């Protein structure tokens, strides 16, 4: 007993309590499904949701952990990771709510789906705190492999198969390229795998290492950009979004993307700190391309899921703006935007799921006249889409304003202007859907809406869907006006994380150095 206590204290095992709870939930879901069988599927989702709420509670307890490093520095449970893990766990809760009816209707087993979903969550949560190259790799692959499995889950559908295959091949290739970059990092640092030690080693390296470091940087960014689906590493996104079960898409667009951003922050700010100028440059290019291509191509889409795919590419571009700013406000605006994005994007996906479950289509033109048949769905979808577009009273507006303000403060005038212009473009395609839904004339109604089934919330799995819609509706409309708590949370998560202090101190040092170097020239 004494020994195990000692061991737990030595490892600081309490830091991974939230992940431990996810593993326990995962095992419970698998074992209960094995023993009880299909009868359990009516209450098993609530076990999973309860487990995830316990995880969130454990995360709240982790806040401001004075001793965040655990497992010999391979995991870092600082406030930044806590908030990202919270976003991921919440996105899984909402995803499970929306998947109950969907999976039921597609005739697949819900328990196995939830088990894979929880594994993906686990991988994403570990990725947000991973502090060691090996840990990063294993958690990244846990996330990826379970995502491939979920994508192909409706296995009798050729579209789902094809999406899974494309995702797997592109994902495996990008993780191999990422690994090549990581292996160079291991070599350049003279045999270190811990991010902080790599940074320390690289800081003393001579200038001959520049080419190797540049290649390591580009290869690693290829892997990260694949996860956050930034252009030009986005080719998989529309296909996978169109072909996978919609709840999976919802998870990929929020949970998986948040994990990608957490990885980007941690890796670029520590290991690649010595090449900050270079990675800022690369990310500027990625952000410009993502904002332009995502928003422009979204205009031409006829399928709702595909449109949301391009919209998520564009949103990733906006979030990158906060990263490029490189100030505390920039990082805080990123976290704030991701928090809001969680609710509005998942809300939009819940509505899309409800519509496709009732009518069996996700074509944008089929939404015409929906207002007369289903007011709640129209209202929720409109609010979420307007928020994604950044129309004033909604949460998304405040998120964007904060991002653009932080970018402006950091002197990224061109990028911010581009962001503003592309936001205006994005409003057009979001409004198009809203306008489609509220057309007045009954003869303009699409066939799908004319044959709209009577609204029955008492079918199995419909209640959770309703809860999901109402919840995201309320948060999306209120988070804008009452955004102070979220804003404080986002700001605190940045100011209380050592990662950024180190980065800032180094930046100040570099500036001072440059000033010193410049001085003699001036004289």
């Amino acid at each position, binding site marked *: 007993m004494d020994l195990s206590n000692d061991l737990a204290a030595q490892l600081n095992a309490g830091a*991974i309590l939230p992940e431990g709870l996810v*593993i326990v939930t995962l095992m419970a879901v*698998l074992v209960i499904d094995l023993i009880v069988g299909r009868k359990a599927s009516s209450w098993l989702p609530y076990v999973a949701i309860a487990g995830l709420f316990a995880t969130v509670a454990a995360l709240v307890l982790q806040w401001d952990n004075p001793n965040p490093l*655990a*497992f*010999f*520095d*391979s*995991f870092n449970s600082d406030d930044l990771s806590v908030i990202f893990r919270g976003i991921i766990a919440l996105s899984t809760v909402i995803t499970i709510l929306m998947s109950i009816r*969907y999976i039921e209707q*597609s*005739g697949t*087993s819900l328990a*196995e789906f939830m*088990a*894979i979903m929880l*594994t993906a969550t*686990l*991988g994403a949560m*570990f990725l947000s705190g991973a502090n*060691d190259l*090996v*840990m990063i*790799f*294993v*958690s990244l*692959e*846990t996330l990826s*492999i379970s995502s491939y*499995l979920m994508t*192909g*889950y*409706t*296995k*009798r*559908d050729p*579209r*789902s198969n094809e999406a*899974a295959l494309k995702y797997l091949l592109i994902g495996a290739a990008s993780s191999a390229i990422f690994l090549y970059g990581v292996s160079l990092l291991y*070599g*350049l640092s*003279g*045999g270190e795998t811990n991010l902080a030690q790599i940074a320390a080693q690289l800081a003393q390296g001579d200038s*001959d*290492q520049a*080419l*190797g470091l540049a*290649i390591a940087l580009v290869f690693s960014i290829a892997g990260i950009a694949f996860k956050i689906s930034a252009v030009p590493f986005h080719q998989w996104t529309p296909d996978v979004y169109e*072909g996978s*079960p*919609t709840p999976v898409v919802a998870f990929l667009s929020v949970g998986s993307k948040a994990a990608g951003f957490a990885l980007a922050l941690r890796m670029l700010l520590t290991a690649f700190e010595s090449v900050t100028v270079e990675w800022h440059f690369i990310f500027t290019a990625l952000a410009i391309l993502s904002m332009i291509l995502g928003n422009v191509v979204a205009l031409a889409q*006829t*399928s709702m*899921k595909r449109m949301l795919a391009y919209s998520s590419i564009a949103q990733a571009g906006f979030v990158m703006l906060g990263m490029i700013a490189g100030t505390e406000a920039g990082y805080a605006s990123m976290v704030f935007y991701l928090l809001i994005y969680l609710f509005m994007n998942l809300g939009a996906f819940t509505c899309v799921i409800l519509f*496709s479950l009732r009518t*069996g*289509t*996700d*074509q944008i033109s*089929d939404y015409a006249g929906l207002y007369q048949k289903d007011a709640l769905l129209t209202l929720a979808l409109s609010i979420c889409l307007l928020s994604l577009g950044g129309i004033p009273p909604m949460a998304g507006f405040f998120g964007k304003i904060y991002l653009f303000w932080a970018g402006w403060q950091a002197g990224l005038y061109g990028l911010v202007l581009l962001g503003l212009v592309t936001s205006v473009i994005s409003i057009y395609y979001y409004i198009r859907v809203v306008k489609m839904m509220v057309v007045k004339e009954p003869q303009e109604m699409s066939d799908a809406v004319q044959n709209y089934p009577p609204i029955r919330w008492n079918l199995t799995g419909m209640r959770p869907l309703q809860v999901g819609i109402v919840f995201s509706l309320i948060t999306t409309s209120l988070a804008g006006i009452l955004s102070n708590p979220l804003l404080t949370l986002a700001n605190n998560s940045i100011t209380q994380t050592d990662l950024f202090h180190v980065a800032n101190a180094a930046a100040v040092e570099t500036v001072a150095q440059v000033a010193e170097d410049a001085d003699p020239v001036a004289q």
Partner: protein
Amino acid sequence: MNLAEDVQLISFGLLGVLMIAAALGVVLLDQIVYSAFLLGGVFLCMSGLYVLLNADFVAAAQILVYVGAVNVLILFAIMLVNKQETFKPVGNRWLRQGATALVCVGLFALLSTMVLATPWVVDTTVVLTSTVVQIGKHFFSDYLLPFELASVLLLMAMVGAIILARRDFIPEKMATDTQDALTLPERPRELTGTVSDR
């Protein structure tokens, strides 16, 4: 001049040439079965190279896992999708292959410049402890967390692979309309009438 060094150098050259030849065979040969066996050859040469790098345990793991599991799995897959398929020729294929080859040669040139230009900090300490002991210590100290996470990953990969590959099990109530079972609720695009390329 030293006999041990010569033997090392010769075996490195031999293994390297064999490995590159086998790898080229994997990507260039028409018959997929030959490719699969050559892939086994690549894995074997690789484990020989690991022995040259003083990594006995990893060399054994390489043979057990790659040759024993992955390669056998790939051969099984080839047998399961056993269909003599002549792919319909696609226009401009040569152009695409040529362009890709060019890009790959360029990439190789870049990587080799990098390898040769970087001053690697070679550590010449001679270590006599067994690698197995060292690796075991790592697994249960600083790499404990990834080690445990890998177990969850393997469990879920196993469960998921079985779910995807097993014959369909359609629940009783769905048996009446098997058309819809295990597919997406959204209609395919052909039926919605917006895009019809077939």
